[in-house]
Each structure stands twice: as structure tokens, then as C-alpha cells.
């Protein structure tokens, strides 16, 4: 997928000015936020569940290599083939090789963010293989040639009228406007594809070392069709998704849907283990599992390692005021919101996503709701530090910060500076005590007034002997 993250600021401005998008985004606040809060409250000790989830993820990451090897052994013993992909290109090459060997002409996909990371659809289509996204949201996006804007609700940025228009244009059928009718129409179009696809492609929310299983959580049932009907099933996911045991999985299954959509459980939880056995009536004849690195090993050995604990629920973006305001496309790559502000620079390069670690107020709401307690603001700050260390910040910003810090270490100079600043700011202010245009901070005054300061600094007044209670002129 093309990386548009360097243009975050311009894209965000564009999104803020898009009334249809703004209306669509209100659903994040109205639906996901209260649903998650209710689910957490209903559960009881959700905090303990988060702690347990984090402990499981930490245990998996502490011995990631061993758990992955165990996974490979168990999966292989049950008839699956495990492939290791260093990067997106290798992952795509593996899928293409499997497709070629087996004469695959059509692949049906269920939702997979890792396949977005690899731009797998482009690779398959480039090789002449027809790819059909079967998750409703992803299907809509495929029709419209758009990337997802949310990892759980990929089409959250669209309203049903836009989808009705799109279906009418692409399906050449009479325009439907009801949600049920639109869903039925998509179902009718998609059903034959499940039956005729040679290959089913899925992601995996988790892979279980103990049993060699891949696990997907879905709501539409398409995942189950994709992983069982076609003769070949390819599951593609990141190496960090491994969990040691089914018991561990059960904890994460309680955590993920509640955090993501507020559901106690998703409509479908599919645990895929091995190929179709003798005498079994369903399941694929070949089961290929592609484990993608694409930078994850590097992150594992870095100070941002905690990010690998992420279980991709999307709670961080649902609760992020910036995401709620600009939506997912502004972030410019696969993963939006606070998660994306960290994953994007980690996977596409710090220098290719300079704005993203700064595109947050560090309000902390993301880490407050993260099911595995990742301190996302702290990780964003670490990336900011790396930008400074690698001199990637604009020169004016670097000089400004250095100057400010130097002055702040020299109290007399600082006192003089603030005295002058107060006079200057008051000179800029109009008769109502506000500054309409502030040359030093034009971004502030483009959307806000800047209130004028009081006539003298605290320090001036305190040094002049003024004390609380009897101060003249303390009430301007």
C-alpha cells in the first residue's frame, strides 16, 4: 500500500472540511465508545482481565522464537505448511507461488490487515488472479478502490447513501437504500464467489502455539466460508500474533470483542487447525500459514517492543479525539489512530511518517482503554525522541526548543524574556483583551483567539512584595 503518511497534515485538513465524513465519524463516538464502556462495566473486573491479557502477550513476546517454532511443529504435524516471510514482497511471492502451483484463478478473501500491509491484492491481480474481498466493508472498499479507514470497521467513513450509489453503479441493479436490502444484494453477489474460488485467504487474530491453529473473529460468517470451502486456505499474519495455549486464547477472546465493538463475543470465532482429515466433509485440502516479519523482529529488540503486544482491537482509535476528528485515511497507511501513529513509522520508516507520532495530544485515553495496557503516548514520545536524535525535525523547531530550554535554565534572562513577552502580547491585543492574529503561532489564531496576558508576570508582582489577599490591581 502506498504510504501517504508524510502528507498527514494536509490530508487531515481536507478531512476536517468534509461534512459527509464528519457526519459518518460521529458513529465512532456514538457507537463504539459507549459500547466498550458498557461491556467493560458488565464484565466486572475488566481491569484484572486487561492485566491477564497483557501478561499473556508479554509471555508470548518474551520467548517469541520458541513459541513460533512450537507453532510451526504443531501446525505441520496437523498437515499445514508454515511459511516465513521476511517482508511484504516475500509474503506476496509465497502466495503467488502457491497459486501458480495449484492453478488458482480466483481467490476469496476475508478481512486481513496484514494483507493490506503487503498490498497482496495488487500482487495477485498483477499476476492475473481474480481477488474478491468478502467482508462487506472490505468488499465495498474494493469496489470503490479505497483503503480501509478503520481496522475493525473499514468503511466507517462512508454512509449508506454512498454505498447505495456505488452498488447501483457496480452491480447494475436497481438502487436499494435499506441496510438489509444492501446486505442481501452483497450476499447474492458474493455467494457464488465462495463456491467458485480456488483459494481462500484469511488473516489471523491469533495463532496458537499449543495446537498450531489460526484463529479469526468475525461477525459476518464470510471468514468461515473462506477458510473452509476453497480447496486451498492461505492464512497470513504477523509473527507477533502467537499465543502459547488455548487457555491463553480464551482470555484474549474475552478481551478483544469487548474492547473493539463492545460485543461479549463476535458472531463467529473460528479456530482453524490442520487440513481436511480423512472422512471429514469440510476443510481445505491445503492449509498454508504465512508468518510475516516485515520489521517486527527489529521492533522486538527495540525500546518500542511493547507495541507488539497489540491485539488490533481498534479501541485506541475509537477513543482518540484526533482520530474521531479526521478519520483513518488522514493517517495515510494501513493502521490509523494511535496504533498507526506508532506502527506506521516503525514499519515504513521514521522519516516517512514524521507527523504521525506528533499527531496526538498525548491525552492518554488510548492507553486507558487499551486491552493489553500499551502505554501508547509514551511510545509516541519515544518516536519523537528518535526523530530528534536523527535530526529529522525541522531546523526551526530544533533551534526553538534549544533556545527555549537554554533561556529556561537562566532565570534572570527568563524573567526578562517573560516581562517583554507580556508587554508584546498586550500590545498585540485589541481593546477586548484578545489577540486575533499571532505571528509567532499562526496555527493557534487561525481557529482561536489568543487571550491577552495580565499586565505583569507573577514573578514581577511577587518580587515587588505583593502577596495574596491584599494585592492592588490583581483584578484587571
Amino acid at each position: 500500500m502506498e504510504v501517504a503518511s508524510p502528507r498527514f497534515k494536509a490530508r487531515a485538513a481536507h478531512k476536517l472540511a468534509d461534512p459527509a465524513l464528519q457526519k459518518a465519524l460521529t458513529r465512532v463516538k456514538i457507537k463504539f465508545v459507549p459500547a466498550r464502556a458498557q461491556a467493560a462495566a458488565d464484565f466486572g473486573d475488566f481491569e484484572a482481565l486487561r492485566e491477564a491479557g497483557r501478561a499473556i502477550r508479554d509471555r508470548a513476546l518474551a520467548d517469541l522464537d520458541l513459541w513460533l517454532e512450537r507453532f510451526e511443529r504443531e501446525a505441520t504435524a496437523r498437515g499445514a505448511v508454515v511459511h516465513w516471510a521476511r517482508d511484504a514482497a516475500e509474503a506476496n511471492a509465497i502466495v503467488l507461488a502457491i497459486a501458480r502451483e495449484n492453478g488458482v484463478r480466483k481467490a476469496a478473501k476475508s478481512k486481513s490487515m496484514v494483507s493490506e500491509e503487503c498490498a497482496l491484492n495488487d500482487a495477485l491481480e498483477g499476476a492475473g488472479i481474480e481477488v474478491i474481498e468478502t467482508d462487506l466493508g472490505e468488499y465495498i472498499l474494493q469496489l470503490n478502490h479505497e483503503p480501509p479507514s478503520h481496522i475493525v470497521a473499514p468503511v466507517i467513513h462512508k454512509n449508506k447513501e454512498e454505498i447505495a450509489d456505488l452498488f447501483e453503479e457496480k452491480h447494475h441493479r436497481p438502487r436499494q437504500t435499506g441496510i438489509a436490502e444492501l446486505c442481501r444484494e452483497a450476499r447474492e453477489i458474493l455467494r457464488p464467489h465462495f463456491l467458485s474460488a480456488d483459494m481462500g485467504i484469511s488473516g489471523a487474530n491469533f495463532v496458537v502455539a499449543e495446537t498450531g491453529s489460526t484463529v479469526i473473529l468475525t461477525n459476518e460468517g464470510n471468514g468461515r466460508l473462506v477458510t473452509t470451502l476453497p480447496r486451498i486456505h492461505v492464512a497470513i499474519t504477523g509473527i507477533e500474533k502467537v499465543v502459547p495455549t488455548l487457555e491463553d486464547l480464551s482470555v484474549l477472546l474475552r478481551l478483544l470483542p469487548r474492547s473493539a465493538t463492545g460485543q461479549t463475543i463476535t458472531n463467529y470465532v473460528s479456530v482453524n487447525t490442520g487440513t481436511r482429515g480423512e472422512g471429514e466433509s469440510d476443510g481445505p485440502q491445503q492449509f498454508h500459514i504465512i508468518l510475516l516479519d516485515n520489521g517486527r523482529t527489529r521492533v522486538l529488540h527495540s525500546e518500542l517492543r511493547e507495541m507488539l503486544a497489540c491485539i488490533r482491537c481498534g479501541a485506541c482509535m475509537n477513543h482518540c479525539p484526533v482520530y474521531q476528528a479526521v478519520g483513518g485515511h488522514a493517517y495515510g497507511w494501513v493502521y490509523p489512530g494511535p496504533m498507526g501513529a506508532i506502527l506506521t513509522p516503525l514499519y515504513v520508516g521514521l522519516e516517512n511518517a514524521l507527523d504521525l507520532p506528533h499527531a496526538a495530544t498525548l491525552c492518554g485515553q488510548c492507553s486507558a482503554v487499551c486491552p493489553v495496557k500499551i502505554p501508547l503516548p509514551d511510545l509516541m514520545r519515544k518516536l519523537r525522541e528518535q526523530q530528534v536524535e536523527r535530526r529529522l525535525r525541522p531546523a526551526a523547531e530544533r533551534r526553538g526548543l534549544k533556545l527555549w530550554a537554554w533561556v529556561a535554565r537562566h532565570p534572570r534572562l527568563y524573567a526578562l524574556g517573560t516581562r517583554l513577552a507580556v508587554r508584546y502580547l498586550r500590545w498585540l491585543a485589541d481593546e477586548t483583551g484578545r489577540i486575533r492574529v499571532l505571528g509567532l503561532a499562526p496555527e493557534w489564531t487561525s481557529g482561536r483567539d489568543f487571550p491577552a496576558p495580565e499586565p505583569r508576570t507573577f514573578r514581577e508582582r511577587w518580587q515587588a512584595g505583593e502577596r495574596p489577599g491584599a494585592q492592588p490591581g490583581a483584578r484587571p
Partner: protein
Amino acid sequence: MKIGFFVTCLVDLMRPRIGFAAIRLLEAAGCTVEVPMTQTCCGQPGYNSGDRASARALAFKVLEEFEAFDYVVAPSGSCAGMIRVHYPDLFRDEPALLARIQALGARTFELTDFLVNVAKLEGVPGRFDGTVTYHDSCAGLRELGVQDQPRALLARTGAELREMTESTTCCGFGGTFSIKFGDISARLADDKCVNACATGAEAIVGGDLGCLLNIEGRLRRRGDETTRVLHVAEVLAGEDGQPARREP
């Protein structure tokens, strides 16, 4: 109790009356308050911008200036949170200094948290015969657990508290965020103004001046000339610039 009062750079520069109000409250609670005159800034702008070296230098300066006091109190959850929660990160590889920094952090408090939980202030000097809505600033709320304390104190002024929707959602200030991403920041401030004004409260009250400047700035740009924006210390100390109306 000997208090080292951390004025904060924004209060020093923009709203000294908040500093005087806070000191008045601390004295009302029986504290002896000193204001080290060499203090400047806690270092948060550098820290959050990735400039660890600058932040560490200023953190060390704060340590030396305030270590001798029983407590450090700031009229800001953001600055108090910086000292208590984030300073240790700046000294993680310096064990001797880290111990001193952690000890300082343990004695550092946001104003209302200190008044309620340490100084156990009974009555407050201020009287506010009107309606207020309280904005929970992020760092105070999520780093220091400041939520009930300001509300409990405000209730003692006679103010009627009207809770706004999403009082705990960020106002969009975010320090340098507000000048790097002005349009997003202003949009979040706008949401905050809409929620606050929907309560019909006469004043929006908060515990962090950065947020208050952001909210006031957006409020005035929206054309609201009447809703007041006040720091909780001003209201509690009766230093909000208006005489209290007498009860009939």
C-alpha cells in the same frame, strides 16, 4: 507544612492571579508557602517534543530548587504530572539521581488533590453563586487521578455544578500540538465549547491554564462573549474578579 509553590510558566506569563489565588488557598489550609524565584518551567515542552536532554536539564533544576520542601504544589495537573510521573523516566539510567527524583515526585501534587487529600482543607475562602461546568484536563485526570477533588471543593463555594457531556475528553490543547496542528486542535476545542455551553453554565472551570486558554480562545472566536473561563483556584479563592452576590 512547608510548601514549595511551582507557579508554572503559563500562570507566570499569562494569569498571575491564579498563582496568588492558589497560594491563598494553601495558606487557608495552614501551609507555609514559599515561591523559589529561580523557577522557570518543568521541561514538559522539550520532553514531549523528544528533546530529552533539555527536559533532563530542567528537571534537574527543579529538583535542586524544590527538594528541600515538604511538598511541591502546582496549580496544574500537567506540570505536577510531569514531575511525578515523567521525571523518573529522564533519570532512568542514573540511580542516585533517580532516587531523589522519585522522592520529589512522591511529594509533588496538583493543587486540588493536595488541598483535599493532604492539607484536608475544610472551608474555602471563595463564594460562587452561579453555575459552573468542569473540564477534566487529561494529565491531571489520567496521570494523577484528579476528578472528584476539584468538584468537592467547588461544591463548598456554593457553585452549582452542571456536568457536560464528555467532560473527560481532551480539549485539543496538547501543548505544542495546539500550534503544530492548529486546525485539529481548534476543532477539538470547538467540541469542548459545544459540550460546555450546552450545560448553560455561566463558567467553564478547569485546573490547567493551557486547556483554559485553548477553550477561552475558541469560545471567543465562536462569538461567545459571556461564558466565563476560570481556573478552579480563582473560584475557590474568590479571586475570580467578581464580587460574590449576597444570598437574599
